[in-house]
């Protein structure tokens, strides 16, 4: 079973992603800020990170830049999802190390499709 770490300070957002992804057979762990996310990423193996930008303690850009410098986890794919919809926000996400960038709210079918794609969990 592929394992996904959802890092977002909004509890309702984390719970929503968990419901959508678990229904498709993914295992989901949650973190409420960047520090907590980094701690979990360094202690458990994940197949995908889903990361918000604006979070207390450590923002999503800083988190992704840190992950990309950690040899043990730097290759794990990451989706960045934020309310900010300007082109510079997407560019900043990719510069920080995101594989994909979405604006909130994300349609469940988009989340599932990209999670499958990035984790290699292809289905017919």
């Amino acid at each position, binding site marked *: 079973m592929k394992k996904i770490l959802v890092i977002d300070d909004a509890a*309702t*957002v984390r*719970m*929503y992603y968990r419901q959508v992804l678990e229904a498709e057979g993914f295992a989901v762990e949650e973190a409420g800020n960047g520090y907590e996310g980094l701690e979990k990423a360094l202690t458990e193996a994940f197949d995908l990170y889903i990361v918000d930008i*604006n979070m207390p303690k450590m923002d999503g850009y*800083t988190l992704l830049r840190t992950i990309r410098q950690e040899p043990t986890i730097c290759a794990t794919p990451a989706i960045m999802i934020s*309310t900010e919809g300007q082109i510079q926000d997407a560019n900043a996400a990719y510069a920080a190390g995101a594989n994909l960038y979405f604006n909130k709210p994300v349609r469940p079918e988009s989340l599932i499709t990209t999670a499958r794609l990035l984790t290699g969990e292809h289905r017919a």
Partner: protein
Amino acid sequence: MTLIKKHDATGDAPREFRHQSRDRAGLLCQLEADAPEQRRWAALDLAAFSDAADALCDRLEQETQTPVREAILTSLIQIGGNPVVCGLMPLLRSEDAALRNQVIEALQQLPEAVSPYIERMLADDDADYRIFAINVLANLRHPQAPAWLQDVIERDDNINACAAAVDGLAEIGTPEAIPALTALPERFADDPFMQFCTQTAIRRIQGHGA
């Protein structure tokens, strides 16, 4: 019994980098020093000067060193009041996500000073700015915070602003918010996330947990 002073207090004092005098003018000069440690000390010492808020906010906008930023924010919170809130609010528009989040956390610690500005912040044309204001509200120890969040879900047309307010209400909402939460999904009928998060918030307010 004889008390023996083991260490000379001055001899053991931490090495400090105060090359300027510690009056207001000297500290403001040191706040622009090249060495981050000097700027950090100046920022901390400027907490004693209530009229230093503008200079500290100006420095905060340019500052890249985390320890100096933290010192500036510590002093700004200690100074408090309207000049600090007015100096911090524009920084919510910064491109620097870390700075924005630090400003949100600082404003949350100034509930009385920030409260007169909340309605203006929630009426801003920029949806991102409104969302940051909602983020301030979600952890603001002010009795009116739930009512302000409820106002957002009744009036704001932006789905992400409403979702942020719903998330805040899930934490601090009262039963008075339930009718507004119940009505909200109709405004965003094609969005399954809004259906989910309003139901979650209502369950939490009713004490049924997640």
